């Protein structure tokens, strides 16, 4: 495998001198690129960029990328429903929302991502997945891998090693899929399990599946070998050069506007704010002194913000004014523990300095924040 550094490539000079003989067209009917970055936001931004800016009529693109630990949810999903956000925060695992549909996946360096870019007309997922399977079989003929009609790739007829999602635009489309090589399965299963109860939403749900790493099947495999095999098969099928070109997602001259796209993908408004409207209806069981208090909480969350909030407290447990202050403060705020914490601690400053009151308030607020 020969990896060319983009900077050394002739094409840069081609761009300035002869417009037509530029990088993309000299490569023939296709191009294979690989990201040098492991940042999920940067890599997703590259996908967006290629989808919006590249003319895929003349050639198709295969994009290869890997990410450091991250959970990636589908365009129309609800992160609270899909993963354990508390655990993500604790473990410093990133959360990203991609623009394609489909379900939630866990990425780490033991997982490789493949994106097939084509024109809208040439969009064909089955073909792409069959290509991957062909490549895997060419590498290790004894591997029992096949494509299901749900566009998953199964190992040994039962373990999912690849999931698929796609994005279609006006003129171009992409189909991307994961491939589990050597991911941390214990982290995967713990982060993809949501602890949040009482959620009701029309967001796309994920289908949990048993997974297995390819390396468990054959320890002699490496990600490099897999990437090469897939690139080779892609090159053969598209009759192009099988060499992989490295691409730096931070390069603004190569990909103008990429840093803005990367930033946008990290904003709260995109990651959480794009969650379809959902409601929470749950009962907080608060142990206070010698008794247990059951507090019914109902909230409607739209665009990631609390639209409606109802807390059913036993009368006089908290001064009524205080509870309504809490509800008023939460309404319109982000459904976010950080924002809620600031709000409740600030509200505490302006209420009577009573130890009993403070401990009740803290108890209620801690429980409310746990919902987020």
């Amino acid at each position, binding site marked *: 495998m020969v990896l060319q550094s983009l900077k050394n490539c002739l094409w840069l000079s081609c761009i300035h001198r002869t417009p037509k003989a*530029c990088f993309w067209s000299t490569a023939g009917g296709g191009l294979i690129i690989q990201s040098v970055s492991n940042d999920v936001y940067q890599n997703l931004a590259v996908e967006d960029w290629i989808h919006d800016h590249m003319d895929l009529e003349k050639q198709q693109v295969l994009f290869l990328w890997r990410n450091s630990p991250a959970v990636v949810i589908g365009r129309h999903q609800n992160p609270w429903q899909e993963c354990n956000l508390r655990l993500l925060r604790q473990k410093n695992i990133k959360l990203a929302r991609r623009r394609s549909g489909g379900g939630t996946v866990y990425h780490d360096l033991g997982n490789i991502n493949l994106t097939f870019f084509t024109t809208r007309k040439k969009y064909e997922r089955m073909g792409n997945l069959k290509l991957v399977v062909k490549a895997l079989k060419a590498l290790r003929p004894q591997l029992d891998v096949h494509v299901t009609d749900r566009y998953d790739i199964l190992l040994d007829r039962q373990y999912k090693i690849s999931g698929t999602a796609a994005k279609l635009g006006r003129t171009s489309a992409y189909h991307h899929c994961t491939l589990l090589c050597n991911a941390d399965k214990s982290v995967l299963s713990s982060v993809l399990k949501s602890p949040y109860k009482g959620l009701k939403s*029309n967001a796309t749900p994920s289908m949990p599946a048993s997974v297995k790493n390819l390396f468990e099947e054959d320890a002699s495999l490496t990600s490099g070998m897999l990437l090469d095999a897939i690139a080779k098969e892609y090159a053969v099928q598209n009759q192009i050069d099988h060499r992989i070109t490295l691409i730096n997602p931070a390069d603004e001259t190569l990909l103008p506007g990429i840093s803005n796209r990367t930033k946008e993908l990290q904003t709260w408004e995109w990651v959480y704010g794009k969650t379809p409207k959902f409601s929470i209806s749950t009962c907080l069981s608060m142990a206070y002194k010698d008794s247990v208090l059951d507090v019914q909480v109902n909230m409607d969350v739209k665009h990631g913000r609390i639209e409606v909030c109802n807390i059913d407290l036993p009368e006089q447990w908290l001064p009524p004014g205080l509870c309504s202050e809490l509800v008023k403060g939460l309404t319109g705020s*982000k459904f976010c523990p950080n924002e809620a914490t600031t709000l409740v601690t600030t509200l505490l400053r302006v209420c009577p300095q009573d130890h009993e009151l403070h401990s009740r308030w803290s108890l209620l607020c801690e429980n409310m924040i746990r919902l987020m």
Partner: protein
Amino acid sequence: VCIHRVRSCSSIRFIKSKYVCVFDKSALKFSHQQRLFRTSPVSCGQIVQFKLSDIGEGITEVTVKEWYIKEGDSVSQFDSICEVQSDKASVTITSRYDGVIRKLHYSIDDIAFVGKPLVDIEIDASKGVASEEDVVETPPMSHEEHTHQEIKGHKTLATPAVRRLAMENNIKLSEIVGTGKDNRILKEDILNYLAKQTGAILPPSPKAEIVPPLWKTEAVPAAPKDKARRIPIPVSRPIAFSGKDKTEPVTGFQKAMVKTMSAALKIPHFGYSDEIDLTQLVQLREELKPLAEIRGVKLSFMPFFIKAASLGLLHYPILNASLDENCQNVTYKASHNIGVAMDTEQGLIVPNVKNVQVCSVFDIAVELNRLQSLGSAGQLGTSDLTGGTFTLSNIGTIGGTYAKPVILPPEVAIGALGKIQVLPRFNGKGEVFKAQIMNVSWSADHRIIDGATMARFSNLWKSYLENPASMLLDLK
């Protein structure tokens, strides 16, 4: 990077005859010389049913997931209308027409059918109807002007409205850098271009200055001389400013600030400021920093300031007190929970270090590190943010010398620390020496604190910091 969208306009494909063609097909004859979009005989305000086009893979139904527009909105050709999902594929549906949305046929989460109407659009008759294909840019009517057919195969995407704007202002679309999707030229791009034009004679190769995407630079070699000639010099064109006021509701952090500050307003503040010579402390910290690093802790000046404050509060406990709502009782707090104002992305938060009175300077440094990393990750807990009794704000890290800090209720005092500056000062012998000077500005609740108390506390705090060795005497 080449972003050519080369579309041959000789091959017109009317995709799927099931689309409602409101115009006569024969009227849409495309040729390079003609304007392409005035040929449709659409009457004023005609409502077109825009149907959901084929998704591919034999898919017949999709779920509507998000609307980007609502009834009554204006849309331009290629604007995104909605996002639909089908079997793990998310599809962006874009408008084929310019006009006003009159009806949405589906709500969120409804199933939409391929080939059935998605939205009703009232076409703006004067603008005409766009075809399935991308419209090709043709040269403006003036024949003396250079056409840019020399720029071979270079097609520019722009809606009819944008084209008209360009034509009215005598602008070549090829000179504009498009910032819209697929690099199409938006109205804003024309307006920005005009703004740059006002009153100025542009240099021969303007493209180099407008930071262009790479593929645009190829246009420059084509006809540089002509460009200088062609640049319009508008004499008194108004600068187009398309900025609008933006109103947002006050939520979350801001709401919290509003509450706190409104309460703080009720406290009669008085201020007291002084100058501290930190020369010795700076030296001491330099010696101690590596020791702390060995223990894995970053040592700033704050732990010293905080500990000194606590030592001072032992002598002036009223500064660590709280006044009740009716100003009837003063509660002297036993714990010195000293808050440290932190600036985060979202705004000001004040976590506090608990029980400084029993902490060593190193303990305080450890705790500060913990709070700082939680703060920047947005993960501070309620216990970190409540229970504060006294606050220090190190605004000097950002800048400034003197400040007028606002007391955070239910506390009664606060100190703002300016930046450390190297300034000339006189020593006991009358000689000038280099001193590390920092200013402190205190605010206190004048209902229970008087100026003298504040001054004495400040002097004590100052003496500990100016002569750090004296802290050893009183450390518990």
